[in-house]
């Protein structure tokens, strides 16, 4: 009876977290097969199939998928940081009376639905959308600009979707800073900007790193935003995995992509956990 509160969640975690991941790893070295499901787990007869991983290493298409994902996730992370830092600073320095409302305003878009927000960007960016209509009306352009399904659209959508994730850890780390520290710096002769650069900024760095990783980790595997806003050429790993699975029905390659994505994310994940543990 006393062990029930431990055993039940442990069993759940083993079954629905550990086992599925192990199955992915097993599948990534399996042979594809006809029928449903379209694979045969290794160890039956054929042994281990190295082909999915070999394919990942040889075909530049897959290499570019990973490279693109890292660049997009990294770029999104930096864009989010650049926007989030002044926002977090503004939140910390806002009058305490207004802070809950402002914080809610940062978080509420998170609850407006991920897809409707992307819909909003489609409405802004498409050929008959707000921006093209405005530019045409002003006579600045003669024909609609191809804004939607482009790299800038992809980055706009990603930044918009992940910005709240970056604001929160930055806000948390900045609000923990003792304002006396900047006063002490001023007392020791540092002027406002110098005090900010030499005291506040270094102390906010762990928070900034956490914010960057909190954006980078989910963004690296993002599927929906590249699909809805990005150019067809934006074949990032999430989209490639989806395609291998749903269109090509090559489950072993999809699994190999998942394993490779996890391996790629392990370092950022461990870094993030270390940052969290240090708080």
């Amino acid at each position: 009876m006393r062990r029930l509160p431990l055993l039940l969640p442990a069993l759940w975690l083993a079954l629905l977290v550990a086992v599925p991941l192990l199955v992915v790893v097993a599948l990534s070295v399996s042979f594809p097969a006809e029928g449903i499901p379209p694979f045969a787990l290794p160890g039956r007869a054929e042994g281990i199939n190295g082909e999915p991983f070999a394919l990942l290493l040889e075909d530049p298409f897959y290499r570019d998928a990973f490279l693109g994902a890292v660049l997009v996730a990294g770029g999104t992370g930096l864009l989010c940081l650049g926007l989030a830092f002044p926002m977090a600073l503004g939140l910390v320095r806002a009058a305490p009376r207004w802070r809950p409302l402002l914080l809610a305003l940062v978080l509420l878009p998170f609850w407006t639905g991920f897809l409707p927000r992307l819909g909003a960007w489609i409405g802004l960016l498409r050929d008959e959308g707000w921006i093209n209509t405005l530019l045409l009306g002003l006579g600045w352009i003669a024909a609609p600009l191809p804004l939607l399904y482009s790299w800038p659209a992809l980055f706009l959508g990603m930044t918009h979707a992940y910005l709240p994730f970056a604001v929160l850890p930055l806000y948390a780390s900045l609000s923990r800073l003792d304002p006396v520290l900047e006063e002490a710096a001023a007392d020791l002769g540092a002027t406002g900007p110098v005090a900010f650069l030499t005291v506040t900024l270094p102390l906010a760095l762990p928070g900034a790193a956490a914010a960057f990783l909190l954006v980078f980790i989910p963004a690296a595997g993002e599927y929906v935003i590249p699909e809805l806003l990005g150019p067809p050429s934006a074949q990032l790993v999430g989209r490639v995995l989806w395609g291998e699975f749903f269109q090509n029905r090559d489950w072993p390659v999809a699994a190999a992509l998942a394993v490779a994505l996890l391996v790629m994310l392990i370092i950022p994940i461990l870094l993030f956990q270390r940052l969290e543990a240090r708080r």
Partner: protein
Amino acid sequence: MRRLPVAALGLALGLLFLWLPVLLLAAYAFSDARIPFQWGGFSLRWFAALAANARLIEAALLSLRVACGAATLAVLLGGAIGWVLARRGPFRGRALFGALAGTPLVLPDVVTGLSLLLFFVLLEGITGWPAERGATTILLAHATIGAAYVAVLVQARLAEIAPELEDAARDLGASPPVAFATITLPLLAPSLVAGWLLAFTLSVDDVVVASFVSGPAGTTLPMVVFSMLRLGLTPEVNALAVVILVLAAALLAAGALALRLARRRRGPAI
């Protein structure tokens, strides 16, 4: 104070960036016309179209059912996980337990979806269940993800509640289950409510994991909206955004009010 304008400006710009697209489109959900900058007159026709879209309504009902079930299961499981991590002393495999509890938080959606689907396929091969993937498999997947978030909230909250409170209750004659029910549970309640709402939100918002683990029988609202957006924007999506926005704002306001009332009645937690 000197730098306040810069920071305030940054905050204002950031909020504008977050809100402008949503508000613009939401406002035009009430316009009869579909053309930007041209107010076609106030109209609820898109909401009517939304209400008449049987496929969308059916998907929305399924999403609500799945999200309620997943959030409830996530609170039970995540509560237990958080309790184990915060209160149960060292045991064999604790590090592994903690790592597994945190894994769903950092897995990309495509990996979570693929791994759970493979698990369900394999499970069906071995036990014959689940014969058909749909609401149940989505619910289990969402509960797993939600539980990880609930566990974080519960663990953090339990760390703030002094273990001495339960000791005191036991000293005053409460058996361990009674001490838990009369002392720890009421103090934990705000986190459980917040966790339920978070798990609910994650569930009604998810398209990737649901697409993987679902079958022909289970199409959730995000899956329908996603296919609509793929084909281009329809005004119904704008109308839907308004509905979601209003519901979310109402929920948030209700939550804030409840929290304020609870504070006034009980005071801040220890």
